[in-house]
Structures are given as structure tokens and as C-alpha cells.
């Protein structure tokens, strides 16, 4: 199909008994930013690995700019850039040496390799620190170096696997700005994340992925509007109070749900509905009232019944990261 930069067709990946990816299909247009949002273990990284020719799909097919990831692996690798989840740069060398090695691996020689390494470092704003040893870099700088290492060959399609994992807010914003810059230069970008703010802030379209399947796909705004507006969480003091609030609100035509001693009310707009509920609430013993505006976390909850979990703890990686990031 014309204009499709990434096309996945029923991709399946099995590891022994476990089916990590259960037939995902999607298309990403040229210059579009597409996010895979899901908890750890949802199959995001496996999907990326298949699209970047690192893993052979058990079945299904995918095309990057028209090249098959099964048959045209070298062509695919030449036009993609992969920024892995991990911090891969070598501590013992400078940022400059790390990027230069990448440029040479992509076949650039002498002056051109140096020129490309310099430009990549300038893009991520690391040129001034380029000749320092990577072991002296901060976590945010290391992330940006990872990006620079993947830019030396001007990839048309960029894959970012959890690009802001473990970063502070400021460093995260810096990475987001960078990603937005790439988008302006009409690079196709696919990123995975389990941070819903990240998917919301950056992506044109989001695919919500869980247990190896895409549960929903669309622009963040569309996905949220499907939720049908805000949610009001009313936490009552006792179960009896909760039940009373529940029945009274449902008599007045509200869309209500009871969970333990919490009543969840779905309304198009909490700001205008709250005064109407106030009468009911004032007669009961209510501990707290919380308004939740629709966000992708809520979409995920609605679709899967679960929240986006925190990263599973990997002690080896933790040690490595804590050694590297200071």
C-alpha cells in the first residue's frame, strides 16, 4: 500500500509453549508516530524485534518501506534505526568514539564517518561532552547518546524501545523534544512505552497491546472519547452508604458501577454533573470524591480490566543500570 512505512500482517511469535505475540496487524504511514502502549511482557519488544529483523516471526509477515523483514533483511537494516531499551554505549570510551564506531559499522569511511558522527552528536546536543568518557555521563545524556548512535545513517524509520525508561522528568522532556524534531523531518517513528503520558504526548496513533494482542488502536483523543467522558470515584465510609449512593444515583439516570465501597460514575463532563450529584452525596457519609479525566491509563483499564503495571524487577539489569546511571 502506498505511503505505508511499516506494515505488519498477522505477526505471530512463539517461544516454546508461550505465544508472546498473537497475530498483530497494523500500518504506520510515512512520517507518522505510532506508539505501542502496554505493560511489561505485553509483547511490545518482541514485536519491535520482529520488525527490525532481530527475530524471525513464527508466522506472518512485515514490510518496512516495502522491504520484507523475512527476505530483505539487509535492506531493512540499512534504512532502520533501532534504539534499544538498554544503555549499550561502552563506558570505557568517549561518546565520540562510540558514535564513530557506529558510523563505520554502517560503512562510512574517514571524513564522512567523522562528519556523520559529529552531526549525530550535535542533534542530541552532546557535542560539547563528546570527548568525555561515557562513564561520566548522566542518565539523560546516556539516553541521548543511544539516540545519536542510531542516527549516523539517517534512518527513514526509527524504532525506540522504551526511550525514557527510568529517566527523570527533565531528561524525559528533552527526549520527547528530540523525538518531535525527528517527526518534523518526516521520519517514521515507532515507539514502545508503558508510560501512558508518553504515548499521549507524542503519538499520532496508539495501539494498546496486552498479552500479545492489540486491544485497540487509534488517535489518543479518539480512544479517550470512546470512554465517554469523565469518571467520578465516590468513596463512601461504609458499604451501606455506598449502596445507597449507588441506587440513588442510578435512579437519577447516572451510569454507575459499584466496586467495594466505591461508586464509579461515568459522566460526559464531571464539572457540570457534580452539582447534580451533590444533593445525594451530602446526605450520605462520603469519604472522598475523585474526578478522573479520560486518559490512556483509563482506556487500558477499560479494555483489559487491569492497570499498566510497573516494570518487573530484574536484579541484574538494575545493578548494571545503577552502576551506569548516576
Amino acid at each position, binding site marked *: 500500500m502506498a505511503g505505508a512505512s511499516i506494515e505488519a500482517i498477522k505477526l505471530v511469535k512463539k517461544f516454546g509453549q508461550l505465544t508472546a505475540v498473537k497475530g498483530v496487524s497494523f500500518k504506520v504511514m510515512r512520517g507518522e508516530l505510532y506508539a505501542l502502549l502496554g505493560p511489561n511482557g505485553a509483547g511490545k519488544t518482541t514485536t519491535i524485534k520482529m520488525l527490525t529483523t532481530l527475530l524471525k516471526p513464527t508466522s506472518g509477515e512485515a514490510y518496512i518501506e516495502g522491504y520484507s523483514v523475512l527476505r530483505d533483511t*539487509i535492506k531493512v537494516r540499512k534504512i532502520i534505526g533501532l534504539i534499544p531499551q*538498554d544503555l549499550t554505549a561502552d563506558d*570505557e570510551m568517549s561518546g565520540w568514539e562510540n558514535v564513530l*564506531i557506529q558510523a563505520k559499522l554502517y560503512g562510512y569511511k574517514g571524513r564522512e564517518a567523522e562528519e556523520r558522527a559529529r552531526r549525530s552528536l550535535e542533534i542530541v546536543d552532546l557535542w560539547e561532552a563528546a570527548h568525555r568518557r561515557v562513564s561520566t555521563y548522566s542518565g539523560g545524556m546516556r539516553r541521548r547518546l543511544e539516540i545519536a548512535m542510531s542516527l549516523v545513517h539517517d534512518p527513514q524509520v526509527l524504532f525506540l524501545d522504551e526511550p525514557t525508561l527510568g529517566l527523570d522528568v527533565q531528561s524525559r522532556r528533552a527526549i520527547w523534544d528530540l523525538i518531535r524534531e525527528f517527526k518534523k523531518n518526516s521520519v517514521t517513528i515507532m515507539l514502545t512505552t508503558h508510560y501512558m503520558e508518553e504515548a499521549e504526548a507524542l503519538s499520532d496513533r496508539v495501539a494498546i497491546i496486552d498479552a500479545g494482542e492489540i486491544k485497540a488502536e487509534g488517535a489518543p483523543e479518539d480512544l479517550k472519547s470512546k470512554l465517554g467522558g469523565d469518571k467520578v470515584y465516590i468513596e463512601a465510609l461504609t458499604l451501606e452508604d455506598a449502596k445507597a449512593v449507588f441506587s440513588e444515583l442510578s435512579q437519577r439516570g447516572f451510569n454507575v458501577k459499584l466496586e467495594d465501597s466505591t461508586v464509579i460514575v461515568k459522566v460526559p463532563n464531571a464539572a457540570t454533573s457534580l452539582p447534580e450529584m451533590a444533593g445525594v452525596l451530602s446526605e450520605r457519609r462520603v469519604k472522598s470524591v475523585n474526578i478522573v479525566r479520560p486518559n490512556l491509563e483509563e482506556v487500558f483499564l477499560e479494555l483489559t480490566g487491569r492497570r499498566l503495571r510497573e516494570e518487573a524487577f530484574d536484579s*541484574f539489569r538494575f545493578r548494571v543500570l545503577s552502576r551506569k546511571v548516576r
Partner: protein
Amino acid sequence: MIRETFVLFVRETKRWAGRRPVLVVSLVTPLFWVLLFGKSFNIINMVNLENLELPQEYYAIAVKIVEVIRLRIFEIFGSQDYFTYMASGMLVVITLFQGTFSGASAIFDKRLGYMTRLMAAPIRRESIYLAKVAASVFRALLLSLILLMVAYIAGFKFKEGFTVLDLAAAVTVVVLISLTFTSIFMVLGFVADSPEALFSVANLVTLPLMFTSSALFPVDQMPEWLRLIASVNPLTYASDLVRFFLIGKTVSDPWLTLAPLAAGSLITLIVGMKISVRALEA
């Protein structure tokens, strides 16, 4: 592929050079062996007559006996002093020490994600393996030469008429034996997921391999069963050849000793490459 291999070789070597303490640490154990064990095991001194109180009439016979023993020692060790014998063997053993840890870099590259990055680059997978092997062999050779230098300062005796050509021949042997060990342990690194597995195998095989070869003691002095093991141990072939070139201890047929060594290193290199590339693509 040669270009990519070279780029990755430079990376491996730069990383190593960036960790200077590692260089020192990898020299400590072989130096202990050579200087402490090699120097203290002073065989020739065992037949020293100087401080021996002997009846006058025995003296002439004793001198003859010592002469015979010395001849015998020379025949067995190819040198009057055990230190020279042992140090030349350690030049080979150090490649085993270095080789057993060569696979670690593959494991860490996999765990830290660098391998992912390489796999996504348009390079031949073979070059990843070859670069790591080349870098490890280079390191082993460098350590071996440093060890030789230290041994020379400590009294290592080259054969008479020793030339640069002899040194070049010995270097070739060291490279070949290093290729063998590095290839074998590199495969483990590509296949295994944890460094523990690799290190436990390394610990398991290092000493037995060392003792079942001619590196520390001559094969002729071993019981039959041990001699059999030594005759298939690549360390024996390499030690004998290095000794032949450096100190002139005779080898029955240098070419027949070299051929299996060279064949072994070529086979392990190629088979290792095939297995490693397959492990990467799995």
C-alpha cells in the same frame, strides 16, 4: 566483512585498553606460576655438591654422577634450569587463561543490549564473532609477549643462535593455540546466557588441561595413561613447539606437531563461527 570485523576489533581492543587494571590482573596469575613456582622448583640445585660432606674416595664418582644427572635433566627438560622450561610452557598456558574468559564479552554484550544494536546493523553476523576472537587472540599474544619479557629479565635462557625468525615462529604457534581456546570458549559465550555458566566451565578445565600437557612437566615422565591424555591435549603440541623454537628442545617432527595444531585451530574457528551465528539468530 573484513572492514566490519576490523571496526569491531578496534572497539573490543579500545574497551580493553580502557580498563588498564584488567591487564595487570590477567598477568598476575601467570607471573605467580612462572616466578614463584618456576623459580623455586630448582632441580639442578638438588644435585649440588658444594655443601655436601663426602668421604674423599666418593668425590670423583659423585662428580661423574652429577654429570650424568645433569645430562639427563637436559635431555628431559631441554634446559639446565626448570624455570626456562616452565616459563616457555606458560607462554602457551596464558592463552588458555585468556581464552577461557573470552566468551564473557559476548555474554555481556548480549545482556547489555549491544548485541541487539549490532544485530540491527547491516553487517554480517560472522564479523561479530570473528572480531571478538581476533581481539581475544591479540590480547593473549600481547600478554604472552609481556610474560616472555619478564621471564627474560628473570633469567630465561634462549637457545644458542636464537633469531627473530624463531620468535616469529613461536608467535605463530601462540596465535594458533590461542585461536583454538578462544574459539571454543567464545562459542560458550554466544550460547550461554549467564557469565556464571562460562566461569564455572573455565574453572573446571583450566588446571586439568594445564597438568595433562607438557606445559609444566615433560610428557616422557608421565605414566602411560597420562601420556595418552597429554598426546591429545593441544597444550602439549603448542608447548613443545614453542620450546623447540625458543630454547631448542628437540621435537621428533616439527611439521607433524604443527599440522594438527593448525588444523585444530582452523576447525574450532570455523565450527565455532557457525554455532555462534546460529545462536545469535535463534
